[in-house]
């Protein structure tokens, strides 16, 4: 265990706490992870601090759990799996290091939230490719490292996007900069000659950023990350298409993305949409759910600097030929929710309270990746499992996000429940575990293995785990980085 004196020397007393009340916040989260209390929480302010902490942790074999976002957490990845852990809370590192319009890139420290970065980017005329309605306390770096799906699949060329480069202190204590950021020269020296930290591949032949994404803090601690940004449109025309036939909407979405005609593009079921847009709970929720079509495809057509109206009009015309072929209609509102309102909403983090908590106070997500043809079958499987667990199928929120320019899609089931109701909570817990098993059996790919199901997920691919284990041994030889997460 790292001694208190040593930690004080690094971060000072104000950035260090052993108080139970403070530690409670890190001992558990909304997920069904076991409660495990850390020894202390330390809040470093820079990479040098972090490196010192990591070096000490190596010497003393102290587990470290990095956290950047504020509560409530949902995945269990920031709750220690073992005793004796030190929480490395990066939320104080709030520098927006660089926002570059010309090269469409932004660079932030791990504690920067979406709420903080969005206006800074907007000032320069650019914006982030965002996940859907992150909570207020969610950090940008946290989202990027989790490989959260983003709402503009057209601009996601690779699953690692929009992450560009990162600086990381590996579990070994080594500092490493990924991609273009690696060098030559320091970041500032690169800026002097006109370089930015944008190209993600390298240094050398490897793409090191891919090893820290999806790692749940098990490889190292990121001290800053850069991300690619997109231009702010000068004109936006959002639309919704409602249908009870998901296949039709998926077909439409795949063509919109294939032809690169839309920016934001995703599908929500009526439950999820109602959870987001209900203004007066609980009455309006039921009403809204009932008036919304079963599925709603949302997309936005945009124009930029050159003749935006012409661009938008030409896309709308081409989209109309698609909707006509599929027998659906693109409209400006569905069930009382306007497309404009949806657009405005999804270009920001979630308003408080976080939308997933509004219905019942808690939510367990079952999320995976899949391909278009398998999706309907997997939704059926989920519905069966849900029914079996006596959970109302109509209460399950569903979010379908085409990813990586349409090569796959993210499917997310939101299971809302009352955390104070232990039997409901247990039912949801069991339901979620059963669902993972059943969905795996139906070809769902759980690329982000969290919580109790992680083992079930990872056991399917022993060969990959064997390689990951070798990598882990390299980057974190003493297994101090969030031990017990992923397959480590």
């Amino acid at each position, binding site marked *: 265990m790292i001694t208190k004196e040593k930690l004080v020397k690094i971060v000072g007393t104000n950035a260090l706490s052993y108080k139970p009340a403070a530690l409670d916040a890190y001992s558990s989260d909304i997920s069904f992870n076991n409660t495990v209390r850390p020894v202390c929480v330390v809040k470093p302010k820079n990479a040098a601090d972090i490196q010192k902490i990591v070096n000490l942790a190596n010497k003393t074999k102290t587990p470290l759990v990095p956290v950047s976002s504020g509560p409530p957490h949902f995945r269990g990845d920031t709750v220690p799996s073992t005793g004796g852990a030190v929480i490395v809370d990066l939320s104080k590192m709030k520098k927006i290091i660089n926002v570059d319009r010309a*090269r469409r890139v932004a660079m932030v420290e791990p504690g920067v939230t979406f709420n903080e970065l969005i206006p800074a980017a907007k000032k320069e005329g650019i914006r982030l490719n965002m996940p859907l309605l992150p909570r207020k306390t969610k950090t940008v770096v946290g989202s990027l490292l989790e490989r959260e799906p983003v709402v503009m699949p057209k601009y996601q060329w*690779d699953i*690692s996007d929009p992450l560009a480069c990162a600086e990381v202190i590996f579990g070994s204590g080594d*500092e*490493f*900069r*990924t991609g*273009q950021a690696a*060098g*030559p020269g320091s970041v500032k*020296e*690169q800026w002097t*000659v006109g370089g930015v930290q*944008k*190209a993600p*591949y390298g*240094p*050398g*032949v*490897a*793409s*090191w*950023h*891919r090893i*820290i994404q*999806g*790692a*749940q803090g*098990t490889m190292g601690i990121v001290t800053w990350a850069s991300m*690619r940004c997109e231009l702010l449109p000068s004109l936006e025309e959002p639309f919704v298409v409602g249908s009870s036939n998901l296949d039709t909407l998926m077909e439409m979405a795949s063509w919109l993305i*294939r032809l690169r*005609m839309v920016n934001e593009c995703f599908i929500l079921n009526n439950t999820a949409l109602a959870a987001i847009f209900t203004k007066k709970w609980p009455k309006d929720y039921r009403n809204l759910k009932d008036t919304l079509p079963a599925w709603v495809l949302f997309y936005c057509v945009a124009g930029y600097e*050159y*003749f935006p109206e012409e661009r938008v009009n*030409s*896309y709308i015309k081409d989209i109309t030929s698609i909707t006509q072929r599929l027998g659906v209609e693109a409209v400006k509102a569905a069930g009382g929710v306007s497309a404009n309102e949806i657009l405005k909403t999804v270009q920001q983090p979630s308003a408080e309270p976080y939308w997933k908590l509004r219905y019942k106070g808690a939510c367990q997500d079952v999320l995976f*990746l*899949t*391909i*278009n*043809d398998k999706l309907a079958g997997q939704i059926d499987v989920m519905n069966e499992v849900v029914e079996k667990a006596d959970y109302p199928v109509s209460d399950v929120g569903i979010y379908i996000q085409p990813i*990586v320019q349409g*090569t796959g899609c993210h499917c997310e089931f939101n299971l809302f429940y009352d955390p104070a109701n232990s039997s409901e909570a247990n039912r949801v817990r069991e339901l979620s575990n059963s669902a993972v098993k059943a969905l795996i059996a139906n*070809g*769902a*790919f*759980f*690329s*982000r293995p969290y919580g109790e199901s992680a083992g079930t997920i*990872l056991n*399917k*691919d022993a*060969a*990959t785990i064997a*390689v*990951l284990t070798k*990598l882990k*041994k*390299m980057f974190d030889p003493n297994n101090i980085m969030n031990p017990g997460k*992923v397959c480590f």
Partner: protein
Amino acid sequence: MALKKDVYKAFEDVVGPENICDDPAIMPAYHSAELAAVILPKDTAEVQAIVKLCNKFKLPFRPVCTGWTGMFPKGTLYLDLRRMNRIIEINEKNMYAVVEPYVISAQLQAELMKRGLNFCIKGAGTNCSALLRGHGHMDQTTSGDDRNHLAIEWVTPQGDIVRSGSLGSSDEWFCGDGPGPSIRSILTSAVPPGVTPGVFTKAAVKLYHWPGPSSFPVVGQSPKYTLSEIPANLMARYYSFPSVEKMWQAEIALGEAEICYELMGFNAAMVACNITTCNEEEEVVFEKMNKEVQGPGFFVIIAGNSADDFAYKKKVLGHIIKEAGGKSLKTVEDPEVEGILLCQCIRISASIRETFRAGGAFNSIPIMGQRDLTIKWAIGAGKAKEPLIKKGYIVDDGGAFFGWGVEQGHLGKTEIFCKFDPQNTKAKEAVETWQKEQTARAFKERYFASTMGPQDEIGPALSNYHLWWQKLVKELDPNGVTPEGGALV
């Protein structure tokens, strides 16, 4: 360096006598390397068996596809992947195709175009493997580098079969990453140094929409193939600009406007190479084009998804070019030339005429990354070519460099090469010196660090990536059977 009889027999038992050879007669065809043998596996199972034998006998091996270049330590077992040439799947809905290593890009592209699809053709040409990581002329639309791979099937240096991402977990090809951190981080590279050890036996590659015809209407006889007509909603043009700054202004604006199917930063010399059928004609045409261009420039292909889309894109193109003082090259406005270039740049990816035809060799410095930054460096590298041109060591291309936009200008590629006669030792030395000096200058002045430079100098400046890579290779290959070198392309 022949194999011992019993060792040879063991490998022969895997592939059959017809598919292994250690006769010295074949070695000159294999980079004149002193190979242990050349072996031709037909599928993943045979690759695995071969690799396991290599581990048993501590025999170094390298896999190669078409094998443009290669350097192999003595006694390497050369896995010629020619027999692994199947297209496994084309998934139109989810926009990916799965190929074995020796499917050449021309084959895959022809199948894709029938379906209104396309993919990233590497600059080495459509005569090379479709499977490999790489970058090419259409990167503006079709991305590049390691960003086009999805799932990969990989036989590790120890002979384990690892299937990345969704392939390993749910037998699907659409995702190469996870569960958890992605091993795609290390499954990469086609050209040394730093070729991923082991063998890629299959990979899924991303596909892109192709708004053009299901096949180009090619007419004529080799070497003059033209198009009988320019297909609907397609246009190719070359624009030159009064300065590099203006060229960049237009290039980035075009990227942000998202209107180019291809934005290829050809110089006049390269255009001349592509549209001519022999060296002599090339010299004449280059001279003519050099007078036509007002400065540096680029080649664009505009492809409309519909007539309206095409009209819009052309309008924006015209506007941006005008704003930057660009001038359209009359030569390329000629439909015959336009057609030749459309075909060259999409169905062939240019390459051989631009590189080898003149002298038989070329040495290049390619960099992927930030285009405006690398252009700055390339200007200096181009000036440094001038003394070599004066001495007659290298082909006179005006000291030009080239490059292209990637992902609508988010990323970029810049390259500069010298074409020379490899039998001329003075020329070869001069070119190699130029290459070393310019690479060193890029490093010193902080433009970029080419991984072709000395690893022990560059590595420490780049987070010691070389040491991490060495560590990784050691972990993956405890028996040391995957030496550096070789080329898959």
